[in-house]
């Protein structure tokens, strides 16, 4: 592990590790340490540059306890499909959902971005590119985003935000980066199911990015 940086309010941390391989925005890694937890946890790549891979992690879980105490991090991946590259997209992110969105914004062009968090310490931790709006509670990402005329949208955030986004932007070309607890991360175990118009799909193998018009956000 190269580095572990916490936000001032300890709600998020950035984990930087050495990594030689490739990874595309939207892809994720299964993460654990040599001392635990037993089951690795999926995390989106937040950034990848000069041999460094970075994750943005919400604190409070079991993994964090191990990360804090272990010398090493074990990763497996990348898994999942890259996000589609869109023309003039509007990027929407809430909390830890900023990880894949940030990576997308670093790699590809975008027109507008709105990132929401509970308070400022989130934005002292992460970097936000130009042409972005940040929102702090009680203002929500959607309060701002609904004013945008852009046709192509990608969103990642907590489920209530995703549901709202799908409702507000139901007539646009909206993609959602979905999350579901994972077992294998590679399409074997049927753990990360979501319901779509064409039946059950798996976040790890068929996603994590799905067309909002395809997924049934109420099944979850």
């Amino acid at each position: 592990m190269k580095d572990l940086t916490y936000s001032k309010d300890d709600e998020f941390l950035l984990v930087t590790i050495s990594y030689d391989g490739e990874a595309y925005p939207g892809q994720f890694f299964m993460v654990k340490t040599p001392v635990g937890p037993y089951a690795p946890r999926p995390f989106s790549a937040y950034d990848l540059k000069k041999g460094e891979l970075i994750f943005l992690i919400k604190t409070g879980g079991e993994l964090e306890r191990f990360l804090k105490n272990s010398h090493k991090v074990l990763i497996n991946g990348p898994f999942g499909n890259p996000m589609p590259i869109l023309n003039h997209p509007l990027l929407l992110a809430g909390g830890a959902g900023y990880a894949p969105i940030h990576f997308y914004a670093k790699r590809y062009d975008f027109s507008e971005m709105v990132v929401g968090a509970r308070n400022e310490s989130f934005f002292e931790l992460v970097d936000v590119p130009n042409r972005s709006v940040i929102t702090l509670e009680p203002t929500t990402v959607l309060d701002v985003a609904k004013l945008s005329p852009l046709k192509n949208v990608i969103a990642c955030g907590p489920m209530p935000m995703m549901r709202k986004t799908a409702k507000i932007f139901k007539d646009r070309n909206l993609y959602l980066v979905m999350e579901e607890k994972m077992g294998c991360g590679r399409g074997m175990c049927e753990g990360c199911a979501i319901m779509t118009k064409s039946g059950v799909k798996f976040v790890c193998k068929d996603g994590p990015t799905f067309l909002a018009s395809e997924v049934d956000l109420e099944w979850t």
Partner: protein
Amino acid sequence: MDMKIKIKGVEFRNPIIIASGPAGFGEEFFKYVLPSEIGGFTTKTVTLSPKEGNAPPRIVYVKDGILNSIGLQNPGIEAFESKVVPNLPNGTTRIISIGGDSPNDFSELARRIESFCDMLEINLSCPNVHSHDVIAADEELSKDIVTACRESTNKPIIVKISPDLDVVEQSRVVVESGADIVNIANSLRGAKFNVETGQAFLKRISGGVSGPAFMPIILWKVYQVKEAFPSLPIIGLGGVTCSRDVVEYAIAGASLVGIGTEAMINPTGIPKIVKGIAEFLEQKNVNFKDVVGISHKGGFK
């Protein structure tokens, strides 16, 4: 030394069986492991009709294991025949796991898979499908299912029993009905509650727990069944992560040892487990089959 195990005419190259479920139908799994590296592969349980499986979450993390509620999602026997069978692994013992509700369901499945499999596994113990208890809790139904399968196939029959019920009693019932091997066991029933919502994490409240945490419980069950039925071949299944665990199962009485959750989390580690068994056997100068049930005979000389 020798790792081979022969049961009902079927020879297993080594005692490692990939358990039903966590590694799916094998398509992805065999990108990491060669069929020739393992003793056998058990497919995800297949049923007559397609099954959608349970609503998410299907996985909850617990200490040293996972709690799952997959619900036997599978495409049904027809799609299985046309799409899965052509991709089943060659060069390892093929075990096809079947599930259902009635003796008819099972016997029809047994007939239809007969020509594709080396053995079949009757799953009487999935904690994630029926509204009340597992099939294994119903002695009569269990008997009828195993008997019906016995009548419709000549392939060796494995019956996978529940760790939540008396394993000796279940073994007796299924052996009397024609089972050749018992698999001990499916995942144990467990639950976890969300303190923020005051609800269970799983929609069906309980699911199956698996992983290293639970191995001591299953080891004891294997020991008991071996004690009661010394000549019954047993698959020990639950919590294996390393070669030492495999040896422990053999000592307790298992002829074959299943690996589920670990195969899902770390498929590339499986060949290392096999290598570790070989090293252990060399060091002890003993064949694997002589380790099976050795605790019942007082241990190594």
